[in-house]
């Protein structure tokens, strides 16, 4: 199966008051067509910056230095002009952010924002036609009173409803790659479960590949086919989800698993922070055969 996205030896440094600080130390990962790949790690491990580099957002920041290979459907993204990057976002690559309410513009109705998204692919689309297509897309995310939702502002809808709208928008232009950055974290547990189930069904139907960023191992287990574990800007372990969960190789992955409280009980997890390998992100493991 061909790679939709390939990230090769990606490095990121930020220029700050005290000199350059290195955030990503040469990470490599790939997402195949129709595959759901998770990037798992703690806050500050480099998950979200990786997503923003794939979208070409960090490259625009004067204080950021990005090096390494980025290939989307075989095309070298580093060679794209600013205009070409812009054309790619929201069409071939789209993204869902953590907080649905703040990722929608509060001063425009959902209908206006939907039309803007649809016109990225089809600039001459009339508002009526855009509303009709938006209605169909909202139906697909189980929003049945779409006329009300299209005329509403984001703050008039619940968090779960906004996240459904964002998912429908992200998939509106049939992207080859969807980047989902902690899509359920800001939601209630039941709404999160509904949202992930819905996303699962939609990407399966449309064959969209997903790069799923999360720190919630339970969610990753249920959603992803393959997992990359990122720790201090390095990929420390990768492999099929089942293999990683059944037999984690890296001490950091084991610590992450052990720290998750279980619904079967057994008390709070004991953390062994003194394990030397835990602090060594240079040790790389490959779980099973990917």
């Amino acid at each position, binding site marked *: 199966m061909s790679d939709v996205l390939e990230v090769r030896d990606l490095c990121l440094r930020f220029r700050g008051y005290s000199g350059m600080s290195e955030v990503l130390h040469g990470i490599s990962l790939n997402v195949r067509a129709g595959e759901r790949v998770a990037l798992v790690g703690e806050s500050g491990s480099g998950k979200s910056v990786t997503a923003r580099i794939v979208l070409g957002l960090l490259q625009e920041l004067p204080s950021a230095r990005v090096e390494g290979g980025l290939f989307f459907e075989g095309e070298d993204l580093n060679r794209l002009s600013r205009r070409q990057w812009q054309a790619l976002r929201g069409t071939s690559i789209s993204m869902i952010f953590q907080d649905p309410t703040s990722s929608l513009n509060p001063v425009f109705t959902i209908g206006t924002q939907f039309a803007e998204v649809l016109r990225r692919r089809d600039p001459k689309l009339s508002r009526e036609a855009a509303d009709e297509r938006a209605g169909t897309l909202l139906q697909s995310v189980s929003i049945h009173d779409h006329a009300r939702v299209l005329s509403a502002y984001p703050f008039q809808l619940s968090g779960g409803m906004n996240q459904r709208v964002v998912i429908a928008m992200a998939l509106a232009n049939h992207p080859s790659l969807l980047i989902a950055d902690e899509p359920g974290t800001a939601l209630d547990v039941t709404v999160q479960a509904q949202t992930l189930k819905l996303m699962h069904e939609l990407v399966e139907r449309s064959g969209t590949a997903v790069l799923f960023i999360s720190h919630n191992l339970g969610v990753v287990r249920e959603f992803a086919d393959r997992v990359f574990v990122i720790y201090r800007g390095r990929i420390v372990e990768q492999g099929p989800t089942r293999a990683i969960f059944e037999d984690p190789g890296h001490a950091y992955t084991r610590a992450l698993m052990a720290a998750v409280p279980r619904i*079967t*009980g057994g008390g709070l997890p004991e953390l062994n922070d003194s394990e030397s390998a835990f602090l060594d992100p240079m040790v790389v493991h490959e779980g099973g055969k990917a």
Partner: protein
Amino acid sequence: MTPLLSLRHVSKTFGSRPRAVHAVRDVSFDVAQGECLAVVGESGSGKTTLANMILGVFGQSSGEIWFDGKGLPIRRTLEHRSAIQLVQQNPLSSLNPKRSVGASIRLGLDVFGIGARSDRWRLVEDALEEVGLPGNFRRRPPAALSGGQCQRVAIARALACQSRLVILDEPTSALDVLVQARVLRLLEDLRRVKGLSYVFITHDLSVVRNVADRVAVFRAGRLVECAETPAIFENPQVDYTRQLIGAVPVVAEDELKLRESLSGGVPE
């Protein structure tokens, strides 16, 4: 034994007819000394309104709240306010960014008149050490601390005020899984050593399973189920509780089996 906290037929209505919102309806439960009662439910189920009534942020529309065998007046005395403390969800925004963390902790001591004036910085440092932070952290601003450290400061602030009941409003949902495990362990140790009581508000049922003695399930302002923690997870009586447990993302096979055996499924 008299319960530490007791709610009897407590209701809260915001606004008036015809647009009245019944945020909490006829809720009764007890929290014993040293007990951890988890309050679970979705957004809008009335969890935070309940916490605000216990804290005295606003009064209940009807019913009674008892603390340590005495009815709590709507206007709380200093003694009540220091005995019932709150730890909020977002540790960074619950601390004043313009004050050092030590000054935030000391404010409580000054307001409630705890300890001699000359002794209060030492009490602040003691409280920080109790939550596993060095005493000299008191000079730092909240922005210089990580999320987990800020949450420890918030817990230290509650401890320094000599609280007996701590309302924990989603105390770990903004934290990473490793930091969450450490903060939960700290809360558990403090409860055991100091005999604190907790009202633990959360929607994370896997945390509840491991920290709470009893669980109160809320839906649309009503208490729909209240029982010992093992009973809630092994034999939930209400469909809504089954749905909540069914929605928990799990990592292990045995958890998956438990979840499937409840067959609540993901709510539509």
